[in-house]
């Protein structure tokens, strides 16, 4: 598994954030922002300057029509994808949110073949994560809608594709969690139990160990699967409440079969809005979706009912408990990542490049995320206090000593949330 200090990963990181492939100015990092958990959302988008390459449609005449919908991009973080071809750009497109690229090493492989993008079919060539970058350059980096290689963009080389893949596989968790965790919050602990209970929450059947793979006890081969969960049937989807044209998304294949890819959940709480169309903005709302009509009338719900003998029925307290569980595991992952970043800063494991200077800043952002995950759910006030102390150590002094002090506070925060053995 690629490690953050690998040379290939370092090259991939540099390409991911800086290489425009001679296109319209966008990079992979334009939509998959390191400072925003490798995704974008309306709140983050609102902080960007008008000349950010994300808004290239607003200042490039050749892309003015049929490249992005500027309003839906800004208000709901929706990106235009021509998943069913480029013949009729006026009406043949879908609008999708930007999935984060964390934990791909656990989610991208499936017995059915490599799954990339929201519907699992986002890559040309051999359909792998490695080839995904080529498709992304053609779809999103082009200078004009002619999309001519060598004129509107250049195609990534084999070496670049290798590096980009290695970098993406280095992000996030490299191994799924092993549930159950010994969580100290009674609400999150109960949420975990409901999440894993095939009679109540049933979440773990498709999100085994809160990841993107199916429970092999229910799906023989396990792996990352596609389902039609009825998200497209949700009433009052935000983009539909505007006057903008937002055609239905038919999911995997051409013509689509209505299915979408199961995403990992460890980083869910701080990477909303949720689902392929950014239709739900809170993690509590995303859990509540599975208690609604759109889901319970879907083919996925019928499969689930066959497997378990009943549909999902959750009360408000149970919905909040599952969300609390997701908030806590996300905060724990933020803490793990911030500790990894600070340790890399101290030991200078990351190979020297411009990204090295950003390690501490990324750690700070992870700590902010952990704080938000917990605060917004009214969880672990003591842990939040330790996280704030960690931030103060870093922000006041900087340097190695403050990084070490911050690491201690991060351990304290972790200790407040879960039973674990301190390493030092």
């Amino acid at each position: 598994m690629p490690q953050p200090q690998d040379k290939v990963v370092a090259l991939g990181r540099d390409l991911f954030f800086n290489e425009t492939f001679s296109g319209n100015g966008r990079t992979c990092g334009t939509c998959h922002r390191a400072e925003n958990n490798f995704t974008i959302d309306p709140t983050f988008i609102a902080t960007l300057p008008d000349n950010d390459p994300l808004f290239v449609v607003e200042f490039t005449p050749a892309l003015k029509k049929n490249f992005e919908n500027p309003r839906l991009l800004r208000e709901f973080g929706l990106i235009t994808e021509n998943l069913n071809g480029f013949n009729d750009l006026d009406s043949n497109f879908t609008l999708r949110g930007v999935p984060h690229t964390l934990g791909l090493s656990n989610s991208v492989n499936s017995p059915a073949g490599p799954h990339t993008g929201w519907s699992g079919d986002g890559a040309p060539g051999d359909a792998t994560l490695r080839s995904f970058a080529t498709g992304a350059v053609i779809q999103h980096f082009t200078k004009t809608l002619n999309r001519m290689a060598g004129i509107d963009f250049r195609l990534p080389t084999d070496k670049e594709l290798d590096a980009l893949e290695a970098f993406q596989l280095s992000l996030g968790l490299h191994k799924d969690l092993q549930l159950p965790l010994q969580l100290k919050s009674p609400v999150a602990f109960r949420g975990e139990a409901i999440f894993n209970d095939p009679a109540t929450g049933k979440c773990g059947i498709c999100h085994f160990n809160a990841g993107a793979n199916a429970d092999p006890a229910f799906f023989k081969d396990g792996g990352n699967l596609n389902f039609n969960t009825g998200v497209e049937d949700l009433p009052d989807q935000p983009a539909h409440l505007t006057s903008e044209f937002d055609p239905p998304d038919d999911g995997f294949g051409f013509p689509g079969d209505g299915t979408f890819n199961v995403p990992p959940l460890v980083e869910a709480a701080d990477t909303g809005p949720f689902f392929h169309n950014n239709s739900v903005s809170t993690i509590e709302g995303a859990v509540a979706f599975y208690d609604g009509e759109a889901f319970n009338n879907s083919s996925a719900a019928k499969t689930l009912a066959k497997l378990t003998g009943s549909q999902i029925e959750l009360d408000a307290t149970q919905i909040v408990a599952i969300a609390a569980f997701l908030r806590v595991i996300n905060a724990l992952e933020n803490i793990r990542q911030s500790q990894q970043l600070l340790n890399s800063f101290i030991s200078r494991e990351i190979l020297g490049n411009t990204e090295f200077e950003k390690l501490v800043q990324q750690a700070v952002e992870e700590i902010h995320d952990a704080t938000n995950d917990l605060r917004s759910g009214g969880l672990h006030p003591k842990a939040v206090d330790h996280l704030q102390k960690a931030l103060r150590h870093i922000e006041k002094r900087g340097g190695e000593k403050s990084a070490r002090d911050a690491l201690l506070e991060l351990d304290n925060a972790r200790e407040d949330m879960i039973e674990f053995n301190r390493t030092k």
Partner: protein
Amino acid sequence: MNAMKKMEVKLKLFHLILSLLLLVLCFEARSQKMTEVFIPIGKSPGASGKTTKMGKVESVKKQDYSVTMTLDDQTKATIKIEKSTAIYLDKSIQKQPNARGKWEDIKPGLLMEANYSNINKSTCEWIKVQVK
């Protein structure tokens, strides 16, 4: 006679299953590889040179929708075009945008690449023809 009839029914059933199977394969989801059309001939990541065959079109048989091409090593390869096979026109030599093509666009003398990287490896997933 009875045994003959049973055999006939079995054969009919076999043909029905085979036809259904072929139908399923024909409509196999091509998946969102739509950006493939814009990738020049020989440059498809992870596919070109691995799951593709490339050569000059030698002959086109309209009767059975097959194309015979001469590969670089001078061997011949016959490609069967299915309903599900996407045809892409590489117009990069003309400095024109690439486009979806039709069966009629495949002509002797043109450079062609045929890909078999889909799940059913015996079905040609797409072909690209370099338009001069």
